[in-house]
């Protein structure tokens, strides 16, 4: 596993973090995200994934809040469901997201395995495991994470790794 790049959001915030010109030398990709967004919602949201600038895809998720479990699906977007708390949650708490993408350098159907967890220094914090399938089937040369709304806050990070 080799780190390709790491991005830390600066003082102005950023609506997205994008990795471009991804080397086509590996088998799988792993992206790790530490995120918080400016939006004023009081709970945890997810991030959108952009595969070659396309966020289309199918997802199915298993969610837990600390007191209840549920399942959800989305046939429009690549969505992590969790891991991106807003400014309404405890100051300085960030969510975490891990997304594994197999066979990224090949064209054809691809699958993603996503783990996401929010943080709120409280009795409940949402967590999710997600199966995702991007609509875009081309070899992945760029990968982005978009916030739910407005910007990622300063100190949010994303790191991209190649598994060879």
């Amino acid at each position, binding site marked *: 596993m080799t780190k390709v790049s790491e991005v830390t959001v600066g003082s102005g915030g950023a609506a997205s973090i994008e990795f471009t010109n991804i080397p086509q030398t590996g088998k799988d990709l792993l992206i790790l995200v530490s995120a918080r967004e400016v939006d004023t919602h009081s709970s945890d949201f997810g991030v959108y994934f952009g595969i070659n600038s396309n966020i289309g895809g199918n997802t199915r998720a298993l969610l837990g809040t600390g007191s209840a479990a549920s399942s959800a699906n989305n046939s429009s977007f690549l969505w992590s469901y969790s891991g991106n708390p807003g400014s309404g949650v405890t100051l300085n708490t960030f969510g975490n997201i891990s997304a594994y993408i*197999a066979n990224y350098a090949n064209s054809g159907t691809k699958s*993603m395995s996503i783990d996401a967890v929010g943080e709120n220094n409280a009795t409940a914090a949402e967590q999710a495991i997600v199966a*995702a399938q991007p609509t875009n089937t081309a070899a992945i040369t760029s990968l982005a994470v978009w916030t739910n709304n407005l910007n990622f806050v300063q100190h949010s990070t994303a790191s991209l790794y190649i598994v060879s």
Partner: protein
Amino acid sequence: MPTSTYDLIASNVLGSSAASVTFSSISGSYRDLVIVITGGVTSRTGQYMTLNSDTTDANYSWVRATGTGAATQSGSSTADRSISEIIENAANNLVIIQIMDYSATNKHKSSLIRSNNASPNGVEMRALRWASTNAITSINLEAVGTTWLSGTSFYLYGIVS
């Protein structure tokens, strides 16, 4: 941010359908093992992971939680080698198996298994225990009563100590 180092130990990309895939003579020089499977099976009849050729189901137990997209499910068994309930006859399955401390001889072996089928079956997490203190030297992945599809890939990684 710390980086785990994966070493590719072995791989098998099926040129034609096959009932099972075996990784053998696995060195004990790594900390943990990771298996990544992408592809699918001819029919959804279950898949086994057999360690060191031990086919005694009573030596395996598991617990799982599944999200279908519409409902949650949970299940368990105290005598079964199954690794997933959701792997489908399609190419969009992704299964990641982590086997911790696989070469230890003083503990039973535990594994975490994530199965992903974004459409139509959902997502599953599973913990599977093999009640043996033997170091793992071989792993067989079997499509029970059916075959793995041609093109399905199996990669075995060792995580460097």
